[in-house]
C-alpha cells in the first residue's frame, strides 16, 4: 500500500545527527508497548548505540482497558556516548491512547515529538483519561510537534487480504508505531523482522501481518511530508568485545549460574512468586540442563527454609524475593546466620511498606537487610548498581558466602531488575574462580581427642567447616540454639554467648579485608561528594559527570558494599566539604553513615516509586556548591 504513494522529495527531508535521544512508547497494557520497547532497544544496541531502558509497568495488571491504571510504558535512551540512565525527559513520545497521553505527557520535553493514535481519541477513551475536550483538537499540545495518525485504520488497511479478524489486526498496531519510530531514528528493520519470524513462525498469517504493518509504519514516515526530520545517532565507542543487551533480573540469574559453575556446584533456588523478583525464578527454571533446581515453595518462609536445607546438603543455595517476602524470611535468616551456612538472599526492592507499590522501584529495604532480624544477627550486604552489574554482584555474593560461611544479602531494585543495558559478554576465564572445600574424616584437626567432629572449628576467616551429609565421620547437628564455639554443641553458657555474638560480628567485619578498596570518580578532595548506593549509581554518575564537565568540584563515590563498608570509605568521606547521599528512601544509608563515621551527611530523598532524574541530583549539588 505505502509503496504506491510517492516518497517525499529529498528537499523536504532533513537528516540530523544527534548525540543521543530518548523515546518512550506508552499505551494500554494490551497494546504491546513492552514488546515495542524491547525491540527498539535490541535494534539500537545492534547498531552500536549505548542504551539504557526503563520499563514502567501498570500498577494493576488487570486494570480496565483504556484507564490510566492500565497504562504501560517503555523508555529507551540511546546514545553515541556512554550513558548510565534511561534519560530524564523524552524527545519522542508515542501514546497509543488518551490515558497514555495523560499520564506520560509531562515527561515530553518542550518541542518534543508526540505521536498519537488518533483513532483512540474517541469519546469513551477521552472520558476514561479524564479529558473534557479532545487534546488533539484544542491548543493544549501546541508546544509539541504533534503527529496524530490514524494508526488503527492504517494498520487494518495494511493487513487487508490476510484474513485476520479485526481484533487480530488491531493487535498489530504496535508494529505500526515501531515502524514509524524506526524511520524517525534511522534504525534498520532487519532485527525486528527476524524476531517476528521466530516469534510468530507458527502463525504465518500473523507473522506476515506484523511484517506488513511494521513496514507500513516505516514507509509512512518516509512518505508523509509533515515528518520532515530524520535523526541519526552514531554508534558509541564501547570497549571492544561482543555485546548483548541484558536486563537486571536476567543478569542476576546468569550471575548465579556462573557462580555455581565457578564453584562446581549444583544451583538451588527456593522462591515464591513475587513482583518484581519472579523473573529470576522464571529464568533459572529454564536452565535445568545447567544443573539448576528451582523449587517453587508454598510460601516465602518455605522458600527460605528449603534454601537452608539445600545449603546444608552442600549445593549453592539461593532465595530471591522482594520486601514483603524478605520480611517473612526474617526468622529463617536468623537460623542461617547462627548455623553459619553459605547462601545468597536476593531482595529486588520495590515500594513499601506492606504491599506498597509492587511494580515501582524503591531503595527502602536497606534497614531491613542490615537490621531486620531478631537478636544480634549480622549479614554481609551488597548491592548491584546497574542491570549488568547484577551479573557480577551475584558471583561476588557467593564468593563471600562460601569463604566466610555466611548468608549474604544482595540488594537490587525494580528499576535495575527490569531495566536493561548493553553488556560486554565476558569470557568464562575472566570470571572469578570460587573454590569450595568440604572437609572429610581425614581432617584430624577438626576432631577432638575422642574423635568427635568439631563443627564450629574456625579458619582464618572465622569460617567453620562446611561438612555435608553423606560424609562419614563428620556427623553433626546444627540448630537455632546458641552454639558452643568449637564443638557446635548447644550451649547456654553466658560467656560463650557473648563470645559467639562477637565472633559472628567479627567474621562479617573481616570481609572488609577481602573486598576492593572503594573507588572514586573524580578528585579525592573537593566541595561535594555524592555517595550513591546500588541503583542510584546511573543518575548520580551522570549528574556528577555533567558538573565535572562544567569544572565543578564534585566527585562520585558509588557504593556496592554496604556491610561491611570498604575500609577506606571513612577516609574518603572526610576529604569533602559536603557529602550528599541521594536515596530512594527517607535516608537509610545516611543514618548508617552518620552512625558509623559521625559525619553530617546530607540527604536527597525521593519516595515516588521512580528513580532519580539526573536533573534532580544536579540541582541539589548546585545548591550545596553555593553553600
Amino acid at each position, binding site marked *: 500500500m505505502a509503496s504506491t504513494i510517492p516518497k517525499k522529495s529529498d528537499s523536504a527531508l532533513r537528516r540530523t545527527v544527534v548525540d543521543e535521544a530518548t523515546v518512550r512508547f506508552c499505551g494500554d497494557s494490551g497494546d504491546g508497548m513492552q514488546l515495542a520497547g524491547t525491540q527498539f532497544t535490541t535494534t539500537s544496541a545492534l547498531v552500536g548505540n549505548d542504551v539504557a531502558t526503563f520499563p514502567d509497568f501498570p500498577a494493576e495488571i488487570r486494570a480496565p482497558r483504556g484507564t490510566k491504571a492500565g497504562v504501560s510504558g517503555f523508555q529507551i535512551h540511546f546514545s553515541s556516548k556512554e550513558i548510565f540512565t534511561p534519560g530524564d525527559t523524552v524527545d519522542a513520545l508515542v501514546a497509543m491512547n488518551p490515558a497514555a497521553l495523560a499520564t506520560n505527557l509531562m515527561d515530553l520535553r518542550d518541542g518534543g515529538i508526540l505521536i498519537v493514535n488518533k483513532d483512540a481519541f474517541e469519546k469513551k477513551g477521552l472520558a476514561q483519561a479524564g479529558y473534557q475536550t479532545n487534546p488533539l483538537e484544542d491548543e493544549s499540545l501546541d508546544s509539541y510537534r504533534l503527529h496524530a495518525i490514524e494508526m488503527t485504520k492504517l494498520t487494518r488497511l495494511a493487513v487487508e487480504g490476510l484474513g485476520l479478524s479485526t481484533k487480530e489486526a488491531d493487535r498489530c498496531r504496535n508494529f505500526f508505531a515501531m515502524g514509524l519510530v524506526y524511520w524517525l531514528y534511522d534504525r534498520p528493520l532487519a532485527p525486528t523482522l527476524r524476531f517476528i519470524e521466530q516469534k510468530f513462525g507458527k502463525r504465518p498469517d500473523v507473522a506476515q501481518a506484523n511484517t506488513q504493518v511494521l513496514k507500513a509504519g516505516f514507509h509512512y514516515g518516509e512518505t508523509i511530508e509533515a515528518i520532515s526530520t530524520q535523526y541519526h545517532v552514531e554508534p558509541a565507542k564501547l570497549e571492544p568485545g561482543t555485546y548483548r543487551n541484558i536486563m537486571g533480573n536476567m543478569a542476576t540469574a546468569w550471575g548465579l549460574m556462573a557462580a555455581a*559453575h565457578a564453584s562446581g556446584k549444583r544451583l538451588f533456588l527456593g522462591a515464591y512468586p513475587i513482583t518484581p523478583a519472579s523473573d529470576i525464578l522464571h529464568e533459572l527454571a529454564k536452565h535445568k540442563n545447567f544443573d539448576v533446581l528451582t523449587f517453587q515453595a508454598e510460601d516465602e518462609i518455605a522458600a527460605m527454609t528449603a534454601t537452608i536445607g539445600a545449603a546444608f546438603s552442600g549445593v549453592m543455595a539461593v532465595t530471591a524475593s522482594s520486601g514483603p517476602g524478605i520480611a517473612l524470611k526474617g526468622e529463617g535468616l536468623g537460623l542461617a546466620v547462627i548455623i553459619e551456612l553459605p547462601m545468597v538472599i536476593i531482595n529486588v526492592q520495590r515500594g513499601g511498606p506492606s504491599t506498597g507499590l509492587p511494580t515501582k522501584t524503591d531503595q527502602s529495604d536497606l534497614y531491613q537487610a542490615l537490621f531486620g532480624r531478631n537478636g544480634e544477627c549480622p549479614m554481609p550486604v551488597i548491592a548491584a548498581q546497574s542491570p549488568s552489574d547484577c551479573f557480577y554482584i551475584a558471583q561476588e555474593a557467593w564468593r563471600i558466602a562460601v569463604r566466610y560461611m555466611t548468608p549474604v544479602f544482595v540488594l537490587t531494585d525494580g528499576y535495575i531488575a527490569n531495566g536493561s543495558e548493553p553488556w560486554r559478554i565476558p569470557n568464562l576465564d575472566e570470571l572469578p574462580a570460587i573454590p569450595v572445600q568440604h572437609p572429610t574424616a581425614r581432617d584430624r584437626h577438626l576432631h577432638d581427642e575422642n574423635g568427635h567432629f568439631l563443627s564450629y572449628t574456625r579458619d582464618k576467616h572465622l569460617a567453620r567447616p562446611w561438612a555435608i551429609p553423606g560424609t562419614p565421620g563428620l556427623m553433626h547437628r546444627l540448630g537455632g540454639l546458641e552454639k558452643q564455639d568449637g564443638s557446635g554443641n548447644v550451649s547456654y553458657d553466658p560467656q560463650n554467648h557473648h563470645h559467639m555474638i562477637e565472633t559472628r560480628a567479627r567474621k562479617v567485619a573481616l570481609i572488609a579485608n577481602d573486598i576492593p578498596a572503594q573507588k572514586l570518580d573524580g578528585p579525592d578532595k573537593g566541595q561535594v561528594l555524592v555517595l550513591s548506593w546500588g541503583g542510584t549509581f546511573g543518575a548520580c554518575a551522570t549528574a556528577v559527570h555533567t558538573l565535572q564537565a562544567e569544572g565543578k568540584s564534585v566527585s562520585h563515590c558509588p557504593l556496592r558494599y554496604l556491610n561491611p563498608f570498604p575500609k577506606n570509605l571513612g577516609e574518603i568521606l572526610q576529604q569533602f566539604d559536603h557529602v550528599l547521599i541521594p536515596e530512594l528512601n527517607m535516608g537509610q544509608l545516611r543514618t548508617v553513615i552518620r552512625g558509623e563515621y559521625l559525619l553530617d551527611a546530607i540527604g536527597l530523598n525521593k519516595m515516588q516509586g521512580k528513580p532519580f532524574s539526573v536533573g534532580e541530583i544536579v540541582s541539589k549539588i548546585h545548591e550545596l556548591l553555593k553553600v
Partner: protein
Amino acid sequence: MSIETTLPVLKPADFASNQDVRWCPGCGDYSILAQMKKILPTLGVPQENIVFISGIGCSSRFPYYMETYGMHSIHGRAPAVASGLKTCRPDLQVWVITGDGDGLSIGGNHLMHTIRRNMDLNIILFNNRIYGLTKGQYSPTSPLGKMTKSSPMGAIDNPLHPLSIAIGCEATFVARSIDTNIKHLAAVLKRAAEHQGTAFIEVYQNCNVFNDGAWNYAKDRETKLEKTLSLEHGKPLIFGKDRDKGIRLNGMEPEVVELGKGISEDDLLFHDEKSPEPSLAYLLSRMRYEDGFPEPIGVYRCVDAPRYDDMANQQLEQAVKEKGKGDLAALFHSGETWTVG
C-alpha cells in the same frame, strides 16, 4: 588395604550422640528415640546418609540425640528444610520430627504441601495434645473443653485430627502408633522408612508433666484392646480383648458390631492399605473412642505415587538429554549480539 564392600554392622548404641538426653523423666519421647535407634541399623542405609530435621518443641530436640546428620530448625519449618535438603540430595534418608503444635499449628502449611508433593521424607508427629516446651498451653489436638493455663475455662478450638489431615493432603503412607507399644512402634517406623514418598506417622505420646494420661485409654492394659484396633492389610477389622467385636460398614458409616449372633467375619470391613482411593483410610481416621469406636493403629495407607524429589531430578536429566549439558558461553551468546571492534 582391603576395600570395604559391606556396611559396618551397627548397633542401636552406635546411633546415640554424645549429648545428654534432656527430656523429663518418664516422657514418651524416650521410647520413640529408643525404637528409632533400634530400627536404623536394620535398614541398610549408611549412618552418614541419615538426616534428622526438626522444628521447635520437646520432640524437636530429637536430632541432638542421634548420631547422624541433623538440624534443629525453627518452629514449624522442618518439612520445608527437609524438602530443600531431599530435593538436592535424593541419596539421603531424611526424617522429620515434629509435634502437634509444631506440625499442625505454626507449620501446618508446610506439612500440607510437603505431603501433597509426596516428598520422600519420613515425618513423625509426636502427638501429646499439649504444648510441652512452653509449659502447658492447649494445642491443635487438645480436645474441646481442655483446661490449660491459656484456656482456664476450657479450650474452645475444635481439635484437628492429624491423620485426617494427612490423608486429605493425599498422603501415600499414613500410620499411627503408640509410644509404649514398642514392638508396634518399631514395626511402623521400619515400614515408614521403607516407603518411597512421604510417610506420615502419628505417635500417641505421653507428656507426663503437662498432659499426663491423655492416651491412657489406648495404653492401659484393661482398656487398650477395647479402645484400639490393630490394622492388618487384607484382614477384617476385629478388636476386643476376646476379639469378638468388629467394624461393619452401614451405608457410608462404620458401626461396631459383635461377632457371632449371625454376624461373621465376612460381614466386616476388610482393611486395604493399597486402595487407590483414600476414602477407607479417611473413614478409619475418623473413628474415635469418644464416639464409641476403637482407634485404629498400624498402617492406614501405603500406595505408590510419583515423588517430587525424584521428578525434580529426572527433569534435570531430561533437560540434559534434550538440550545437552548447559554451556554458559553459548547461553551468554544466544539471541542478538553485536561486536565492537
